[in-house]
């Protein structure tokens, strides 16, 4: 099939199915089947798009036949297609886990809203990766957010609503800033098509361009949970049901990172100031995030702080503004999406088995659930960067790029990255010893038997464990194919440092 047909499908298929899914709310088996089918086909399509983008350059579609810069363009270059493929795969794995857990069935939720919302979320994520239009990117974020507002408060408990409020208020604020930023870009250039804006921004005075770059950085910095704009994340993520937290942790912040990567390399290339700012932010995000993780007692909160911390690595790669740095950042993003999602899925299993995600209250889980221990250990070590796992390879790429840069700030960032890596090992290791080692702790009884999540039970559906195991294997697969994957990341990074390719593909 041609790209004309393929390119809009990752966005429109989930939306179409979401509609069907609401109408068919009563037939839950059919709902589940539809969701699995549509996400599987998105994975296949993303694979085809990646192949096209890698062999014959960025694939472009002008929606409605309106030529850019008038209409909206969808663009799949190597970076978008790669992230689309990874995120679609992760979405599918988490969906299987959720179906296993029965969150999907929502005992308390008569509308069966999980599936439609999940699919809308998937459509928003695909749109954010594929769009070549700044305003459409805003729409994608909104689509994603609207679905996530529902998902984060799925059980409607007091804690969830409180956490959800933080999330909604922060997201709305970011959206307001985003629209303002788009307005400023439009005022300065007269276009919201990213390729067109990239060309016209070259004629804009340096000061204005810098301001635009920084405003967009703040907007996406909130979404990506960059220091000092991250404090909403550890407060809101851990209260949601595990599959929801897993997909948010893995994907939503990375969409923010993708937006930073895309806008900074395409619209504001070679900005010395922004690069320096990014490096400083990278150092602070890494260090502050991991220090936060060290003092947590709750496994999910601990993992939430490691998300923040590891966003710093991606910023580091971008801040270096070199091909090697960007390649490292892309590889790191891919690795982190998979590993972080896996860890949250496993944290959900831990909570289900022991009845709590508190480190203090749990213990000795390796005796009762040895498989669970393995499922936790592999991604945790990968997150910390133990060779030969994917985290090590991705970090190595970044560190090499940092050392090659040789600047003072870059060296400081490299040192911070190494320290963060060690502290991550300490944080996940502490969780390991508290949860899996030691005497077997009593199972904590389910505090609320009426919500959609059962905890403190040995009945763990095979599908849940299977999905988590699938995610772990996915993480290991990244290690195995790290060579070709780094090659692909390097080619994607090469595209990013030569924005003219993207511009040419869209406008001509």
């Amino acid at each position, binding site marked *: 099939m041609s790209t*004309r047909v393929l*390119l*809009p499908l990752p966005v429109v298929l989930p*939306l179409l199915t979401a*509609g*069907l899914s*609401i*109408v068919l709310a009563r037939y839950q088996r059919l709902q589940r089947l539809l969701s699995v089918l549509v996400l599987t086909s998105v994975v296949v399509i993303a694979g085809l798009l990646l192949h096209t983008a890698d062999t014959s350059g960025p694939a472009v579609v002008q929606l*409605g*036949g309106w030529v850019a810069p008038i209409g909206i363009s969808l663009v799949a270059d190597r970076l978008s297609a790669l992230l689309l493929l990874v995120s679609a795969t992760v979405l599918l794995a988490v969906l299987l886990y959720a179906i296993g857990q029965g969150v999907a069935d929502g005992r308390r939720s008569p509308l069966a809203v999980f599936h439609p919302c999940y699919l809308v979320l998937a459509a928003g994520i695909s749109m954010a990766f594929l769009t070549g239009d700044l305003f459409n990117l805003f729409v994608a974020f909104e689509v994603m957010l609207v679905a996530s507002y529902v998902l984060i408060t799925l059980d409607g408990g007091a804690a969830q609503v409180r956490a959800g409020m933080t999330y909604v208020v922060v997201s709305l604020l970011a959206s307001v800033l985003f629209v303002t930023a788009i307005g400023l870009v439009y005022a300065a250039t007269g276009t919201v098509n990213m390729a067109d804006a990239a060309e016209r921004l070259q004629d804009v005075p340096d000061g204005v361009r810098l301001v635009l770059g920084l405003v967009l950085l703040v907007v996406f910095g909130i979404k990506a949970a960059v220091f000092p704009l991250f404090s909403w994340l550890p407060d809101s993520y851990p209260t949601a049901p595990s599959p929801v937290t897993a997909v948010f942790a893995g994907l939503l912040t990375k969409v923010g990172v993708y937006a930073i990567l895309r806008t900074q390399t395409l619209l504001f290339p070679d900005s010395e100031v922004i690069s320096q700012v990014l490096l400083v932010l990278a150092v602070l995000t890494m260090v502050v995030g991991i220090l936060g993780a060290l003092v947590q007692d709750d496994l999910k909160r601990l993992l939430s702080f490691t998300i923040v911390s590891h966003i710093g690595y991606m910023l580091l790669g971008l801040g270096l503004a070199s091909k090697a740095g960007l390649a490292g950042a892309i590889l790191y993003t891919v690795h982190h999406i998979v590993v972080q999602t896996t860890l949250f899925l496993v944290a959900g299993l831990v909570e289900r088995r022991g009845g709590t995600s508190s480190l203090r209250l749990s213990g000795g889980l390796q005796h009762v659930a040895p498989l669970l221990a393995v499922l936790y250990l592999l991604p945790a070590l990968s997150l910390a960067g133990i060779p030969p796992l994917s985290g090590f390879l991705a970090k190595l790429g970044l560190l090499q790029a940092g050392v090659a840069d040789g600047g003072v700030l870059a060296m400081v960032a490299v040192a911070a990255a190494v320290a963060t890596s060690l502290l991550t090992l300490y944080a996940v290791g502490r969780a390991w010893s508290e949860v899996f080692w030691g005497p077997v702790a009593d199972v904590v009884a389910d505090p609320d038997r009426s919500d959609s999540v059962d905890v403190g039970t040995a009945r763990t559906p095979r599908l849940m464990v299977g999905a988590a195991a699938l995610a772990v294997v996915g993480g290991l697969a990244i290690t195995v194919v790290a060579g070709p994957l780094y090659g692909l990341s390097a080619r994607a990074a090469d595209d990013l440092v030569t924005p003219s390719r993207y511009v040419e593909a869209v406008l001509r």
Partner: protein
Amino acid sequence: MTDPQPVDSGAPPRLPGADELDAVRRSVVLETAVRLVFHTILVFSLYLLLAGHNQPGGGFVGGLVAGLAFVLRYIAGGRAALREAVPVDPGVPLGLGLVLAAGTGVTALLLGGQFLESGKVELDLPLLGIVKATSALPFDTGVYLVVVGLVLGVLRTLGAEAER
């Protein structure tokens, strides 16, 4: 759905379903007014939907106006009156609307055009003369249904809590 009730001598004309409300919460003026304007508003919302192609209007505005008609009905007669007027789950218009809007885009793909590319047909119908229809119409109808479904959903869920 909204046939006039057999009126007892002296009893106020009422909205179907409104008799489930407490007598103190009912208003003859409001119920009568709603019975008068309800259909007019719906027809106006359809006008807005159809006129939207090249005049002020469109699916979103049309849907909102139709939603207002349902809001009025809810205010006058409570949840039961709303259920009388729309005896379906709010998810049905919402979902169908989404399918219709997304389906319009996909149809363009299947016919060999770009996603969401619009097409038009001109028909010479008896009595009506030349009628022009564009593929923006089914898309807009989808939007209309989504908005209506949303308003109904809000009334039903938030309204259920408010009436408790």
